[in-house]
């Protein structure tokens, strides 16, 4: 219990640190006024414009010192008020953007993780149970290749092969299409290439870890012991060896969650999926403070929460770490 409280405290501390970092970077390096007002923000001559600039500063507290602004922002943020989008006409609330974009990225990443685990676990078990066989070596090499293939390159290759040359799968994403369904006109199908682009490297990483750990586990005394008790190979493999071999995969699963957002950024760019990844890049380029902050916080929180979940899962999987 105490551990989890500590964990929570740590998470909050991290979130505060990350938000301060982002807030500070944006405040000192960027100028939000241009986004709100456009070029007149730089006008020091025309008194009307100067007044407008002043008004905007007051409206968004930009005349206040950075720490005060930070505290204001944090206060709003905690109450669920993410502020407004500076760089969008009419300054609509950031939450609109989040509501629209987040589900797409979640769909993409969840699909990718499911694919990744779905591919990696059988693949890893197959490889490990035939360690050093031809199958295993081929798998190892394949996995190595995928791990080394940058996401953007993989995306392009998949796009080229399946989207363009073979023309099997849709190469575009259409945010207005319905999700469920099995034709080119459904986002489920449109997400296949992007999801695979995300999933294959992750699956390969998992596979490599699982294989190594499983091979190690299979040489452990307790596996031999299970065999010596007369349990069948299959039962030993899945009943005894698999679970204690999942820890690395689990850890990396948490870490990948962070990598996945980077990946999502690339994949959303390649396949033009208007999700959070694209939104972050756009917002950074437009120096749109509130959007960047909100999205960074969402992504970071998701990452941290996922890691706490991973930790929880750990203690489910491994009684030795139960607290």
């Amino acid at each position, binding site marked *: 219990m105490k551990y989890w409280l500590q964990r929570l405290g740590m998470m909050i501390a991290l979130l505060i640190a990350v938000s301060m970092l982002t807030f500070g970077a944006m405040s000192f390096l960027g100028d939000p006024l*241009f*986004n709100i*007002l*456009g*070029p*007149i923000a*730089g*006008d*020091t*001559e*025309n008194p*009307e*414009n100067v007044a*407008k600039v002043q008004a905007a500063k007051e409206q968004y507290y930009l005349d206040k010192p950075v720490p005060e602004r930070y505290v204001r922002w944090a206060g709003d943020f905690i109450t669920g008020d993410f502020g407004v989008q500076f*760089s*969008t*006409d*009419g*300054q*609509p*609330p950031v939450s*609109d*953007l989040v509501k*629209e974009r987040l589900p797409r990225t979640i769909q993409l990443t969840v699909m990718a993780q499911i694919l990744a685990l779905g591919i990696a676990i059988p693949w890893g078990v197959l490889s490990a149970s035939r360690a050093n066989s031809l199958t295993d070596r081929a798998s190892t090499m394949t996995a190595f290749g995928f791990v080394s293939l940058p996401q953007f390159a993989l995306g392009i290759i998949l796009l080229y092969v399946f989207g363009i040359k073979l023309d099997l799968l849709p*190469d*575009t994403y*259409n*945010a*207005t299409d319905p999700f469920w369904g099995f034709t080119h*006109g459904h986002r489920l199908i449109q997400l296949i290439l992007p999801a695979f682009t995300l999933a294959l490297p992750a699956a390969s990483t998992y596979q490599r870890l699982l294989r190594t750990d499983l091979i190690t586990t299979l040489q452990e005394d307790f596996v031999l012991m299970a065999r010596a008790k007369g349990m069948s190979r299959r039962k030993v493999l899945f009943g005894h060896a698999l679970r204690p071999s999942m820890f690395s995969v689990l850890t990396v699963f948490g870490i990948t969650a962070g990598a996945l957002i980077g990946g999502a950024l690339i994949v959303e*760019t390649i396949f*033009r999926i*208007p999700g959070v990844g*694209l939104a972050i890049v*756009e917002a950074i*380029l*437009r*120096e749109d403070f509130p959007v960047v902050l909100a999205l960074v916080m969402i992504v970071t929180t998701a990452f941290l929460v996922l890691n706490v979940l991973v930790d929880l899962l750990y203690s489910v999987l491994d009684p030795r770490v139960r607290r």
Partner: protein
Amino acid sequence: GGGSDDESSSDAGDTSTETTADSGDGDMDDSDADSDGDMAADDMDDADDMDDADMDDADMDDADTDDMAEEESDAIVTEIEDDSDLDPVFGGTLRFGLEADVDGLNPLTSALSAPGLTMGAAVFDTWAIWDENDRWAPYLAESFTPSDDFRSWTMKIRPGIEFHDGTPLNAEAVRINFETVIADPLVGLAVAPFYPSVEDGALEIIDDLTVVFNLLDSDTTFPGSLAGALGMVASPTWVAAALEDPTLNQQPVGTGPFAYDSRSADSVTRFVRNENYWNGDVYLDAIEFVPVTDPDIRASLLLEGDLNGLATTNVASISTTAEDDSIQNLLDDSTEESFTMLNSATAPFDDIRARQALTFATPRDNYNTLIGLGVNRPADQMFTADSAYYNPDVVQEADMPERSGELVESYCADFPDNCADGKINMELQWSGPSVVQTRIAELLNEGWKEFFNVEFQELPQDSHIQETAFGLYNAVTWRQFGAVDPSKDNVWLLCRTVGGISLNWPKYCDEERDALLLEAQAMDADDPARVAKYQELSQMINEDYLYIFFNHTLWSQSFGPEVRNVCARTTPEGVVGRCQVNGRTFFHTAFLAE
């Protein structure tokens, strides 16, 4: 040309001004295309007065007609079906692919980019329109009557028209629209220079359906400035509400053939038929605008039938659709030009030697081959060879680096601080990230690098426009000059738009040129002497070396075979409107054939 809308197409931008040819636009860029920040300038049509026309004759340099000129004379082939004999079909939703989405759809407070204008044209009608012969014709207005000196124009409003929200169209609506625009810190920049202040009676209301516009200068084609974004009439109720709650900018209310239905940023904006349309039947049930930033994808969606139409300036994609016989292409390159623009207010390009040296060293042929893919017509001036105002003697100099050396040497002798290693230091700025823009920069640098130390600066679009407006640049790639009537391009050229924020981007003020511009504006559009004025203008621009013209932007509106009757918009008086203006077309009469 009146203020044209220069919408830039895709790339960066939106804003008008932004330049670039976007021929091959990379996708990336497009994605932010609309970011907003548009400078006001964008499309603003402004009204000008007319002045007396004084015809100066243009000096005619004789330029040899070279290959280029020959090519220029090739007319652009438009392959749109003639539908006059077809019976219209009611119903259906037309899906139209745009190169980007826009932040807001309020024509009074945002400088709309081409996609914004395309969407706006479906919701908002304008007071006037351009006709097939590039002359203005009243549309929402019943009539325009100029004073003798063409400095005030009396506009009569057609009675009985209502906005989608039921607000009547009347003089009050004119006032609110006009005052909102002129008060807008950005959009107003392009309007205000041509009127006295509001207090001094820029607009007089005569009665509920009659108003008078008072101008600073004579302008024989003033109503033309009410045919673009500045003529889009928004419901005063909505305008007022949107000032309070800017999120309403996403839900436009006009008098147009379509009314706002729903909008989700970056995915789809849907308008439905205005059942009460004042000017004839609207056949489509609805029209959906879908931003698809990648031009290749946009084209393929059209070919696969997922879209019914699209707009593009991407040459590769135009070629693709041109190859497919079933696709109708509405092509037009009479509007903007792509060029490199130099800042005359700061070193090194405050010195004409530096400007000339850069111009001569520019690899313009390569630009037209590689970026224009040989499809865009090379430009020597702001007019295409088909234009009445075309000056065949004006030739854009380039590709003669041998002439640069001496100039650079002499410049550097005078200003050693601005040079290093015997080359002039300069910075080339563009809006990005954009693959095409980067390619353009690298390509230009290939020619320039022998004489110039070129620093590259790629800026996000907002900052790019910002710095350009404040004159914080040496050279930028740009796109502009798209007015249907050349007088509407004055906003980019007059001394009065030089200032803290300059719409006269190069900050170049030439009283003589101003006089010429105002004289031409004051002349009747049919006056043959006006041609000479503009030919002289081209000559002057050419000799100032501020713009290095590359080519004429080619716009294509492409439609699937089922889309009919797109070019049939007519005024109640029977004047047929110009089918495509700066990359936007009109869906008033369109229908989907079975």
